[in-house]
């Protein structure tokens, strides 16, 4: 057993231990704290699996944005688990079922075909037609661009769904928790110092994403975090669901993507195809617009809807 494998084994055990804690902890808050560290540990797992792009996403979303969402909810909910958890019979049955599924999965994973099938050579071979150097970006925006386009619609529907949960009498009101947050000069200072740096980092991650790890989603999430930070500091007000400006930013990325996709019919014969001469620039343009929309979407999803006036 090599040293690297021992380290891998330690990491796996740690991840599993944190996962057990997250499920088993009695109180919700520590369980969610466990989940945040689970997200960060997974980011390391992704680096070990040679997926730096995924690691960036996982750190930004799994540990970051999802963690903020869950912690925010846990802080507000007053529910406690009952004295007696789910019935012992149910737990035993669920446990047996889950154990069986894990065992089946483990067996399948250990007996996957060797050599493994791979699309890597084809993905690399297609790169010149797209003009980008990062094959993951090529998959996301070119080969399987339709997934990315529909995924943006999924995000948009999630935003709509979250807004839909506004009580009728509060439609058009500001989302509460960020609007009324107590001003704290430490946070104000952090926002003033960090936000400009964060914006630069976010844009940088999108820019290099064409050729190196990074991309619209990772960069967009950082921008969203900066937006949330300056709102938390009270430096700018949040935008209500009725804000036309906000809606246009939300729609800009998907709309441009769709427009370029349809233009593909005229320019190079197929929906979502790029003429090779402009491919790189078109893709950068789409990524830039998507970044803005993603930042707005993630921000809105984390802030949540306006709550009932009291």
């Amino acid at each position: 057993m090599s040293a690297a494998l021992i380290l891998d084994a330690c990491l796996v055990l740690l991840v599993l231990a944190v996962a057990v804690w997250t499920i088993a902890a009695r109180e919700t808050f520590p369980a969610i704290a466990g989940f945040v560290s689970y997200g960060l540990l997974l980011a390391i797992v992704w680096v070990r699996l040679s997926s730096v792009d995924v690691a960036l996403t996982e750190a930004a979303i799994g540990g970051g944005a999802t963690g903020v969402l869950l912690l925010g909810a846990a802080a507000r909910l007053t529910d406690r688990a009952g004295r007696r958890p789910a019935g012992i019979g149910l737990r035993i049955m669920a446990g047996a079922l889950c154990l069986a599924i894990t065992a089946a999965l483990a067996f399948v994973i250990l007996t996957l075909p060797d050599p493994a099938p791979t699309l890597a050579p084809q993905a690399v071979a297609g790169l010149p037609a797209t003009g980008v150097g990062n094959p993951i970006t090529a998959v996301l925006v070119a080969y399987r661009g339709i997934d990315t386009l529909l995924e943006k619609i999924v995000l948009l529907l999630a935003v709509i769904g979250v807004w839909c949960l506004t009580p009728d009498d509060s439609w058009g009101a500001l989302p509460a928790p960020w609007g009324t947050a107590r001003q704290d000069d430490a946070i104000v200072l952090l926002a003033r110092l960090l936000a400009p740096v964060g914006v630069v980092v976010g844009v940088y991650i999108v820019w290099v994403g064409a050729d190196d790890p990074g991309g619209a989603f990772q960069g967009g999430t950082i921008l969203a975090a900066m937006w949330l930070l300056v709102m938390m500091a009270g430096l700018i007000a949040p935008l209500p669901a009725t804000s036309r400006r906000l809606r246009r930013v939300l729609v800009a990325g998907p709309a441009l993507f769709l427009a370029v996709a349809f233009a593909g019919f005229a320019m190079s014969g197929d929906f979502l195809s790029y003429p090779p001469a402009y491919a790189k620039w078109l893709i950068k343009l789409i990524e830039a617009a998507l970044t803005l929309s993603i930042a707005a979407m993630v921000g809105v999803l984390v802030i949540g809807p306006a709550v009932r006036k009291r």
Partner: protein
Amino acid sequence: MLQAGGSLLVLALMLPVIGILLIMSLDARHTGKIALALMPAGLAVALAIAARVWTTQAGLEYFIGGWAPPLGVALRADGISAVMLVTTSVVIGAAGLFARAEFRQPDNQPEARAPLMFWLLLLGIWAGLNAVFLGGDLFNLYVALEMLTFAAVPLVCLSGKAETLAAALRYLLFALLGSALYLLGAVLLFGAYGTLDIALLAARIAAQANMASPVWPLALWVALALMTVGLLAKTALFPLHLWLPPAHSGAPAAASAVLSALVVKASFFLIVRLWFGMLPGLTPWLGAQLLAALGAAAILFGSVLALRQARLKLLVAYSTVAQIGYLFFVFPLAANPAASTASAALAWTGGWMQLVSHALAKAAMFMAAGLIAETLGHDRIAGLGGVARVVPITVIAFALAGASLMGLPPSGGFVAKLLLLSAAVSQGLWFWAVVMLLGGLLAGGYLFRVLSPALGPLPAGWTPAARIPRDRQAVALVLALGAVLLGFAPLKSYDLLQFGRPAIAGAVTR
């Protein structure tokens, strides 16, 4: 197969998406108009696709961006996709007409929440459905399923009442569990076969099955089991139906119609794609019988619970639980290795007829139930007395839709059940036939419970809680008539369902 007809597929997928983007960026007073304007366009595209499938007698296929699978994503339309696309645009269009007055933005007032959300989510459901019916790639289909979930769940709690919020949350948790299991299965298939494209997977699985060595790879069966269970949770097949009745009965009537008529069918459609399309001729017989057994349990259990409901909308929702059960007879009857090709084809046609006629009938029924509840101000079955005198068209629509659900001749439901029944009898699977007959009787029972008081006298001193405009009643009536008239469709037209159909049962070399 050509790229040429493919632009139609792209259009079918993108029309609702364009609608969402337009509504989000334009002023609120255009909301309903944009959505309603897109609906005839969508119907035209769906009909054009069906016409192409009909004339070419084969499926349409389009490689997005010109990237062929396994690297790219394919859209495909065969006979059943075409039928589902047309059904979808009819039901969505009817729901739009039905909801037009209810979800109108108030004039000269600030934008209201519910109308804006309703139209956006309705278009979201439409986009998700079309993506499911056209998708040729397992991961693309995962995204499509999520579109459907994210649009359907907020519709359930559009009113914001506490009980609908709980129903929506339960629905969401079931749906998320379903998607996670589905995704896990897709991941395993990619690991084993190196592609997510259903047609390529079918070819590779078949090639492997013809080899001597490991014929039944575990990866395939684990993946199939995970995906099927996940999709069953979304289809609400017994015993995973718990979320359906509160969710479908709590939504606004137009939304319930779409949820019950179409959304649960999308995941059923995917199960068929997997069991027949991905495993041509390899459909596991025991698994197919198990699915049918669950379907039979759903019919009996759902019908009995429908019989016991005190509220009309819940009764209609439990009837959906029961009617979904019939669909699952397709698996043993169309994949029976012992059956003749003709018998298998009968069962196949019967299953899809059941799906389409139930879609029309159930949409009509939920609309009628919604209108009855509006007139009376409640939907307690005990208090339905004489409602037929107030909204006769609505009650006629309810009765016609009910006739199709029961399987009374000459309705579409009758033809569907007859085809399934005769396939079951000819294949010697008579116990499924008995369940079907029993289900029809029980359906008669629960519909009688509604219609009998509705046709009775009005209580003295009764005043309506709301006036119901004729055009809304007409929408329900037209849908119900559609379900009935489906029974008159010329036999030749059923061939559409067979075009591009994967080789099943009789064609298997065994």
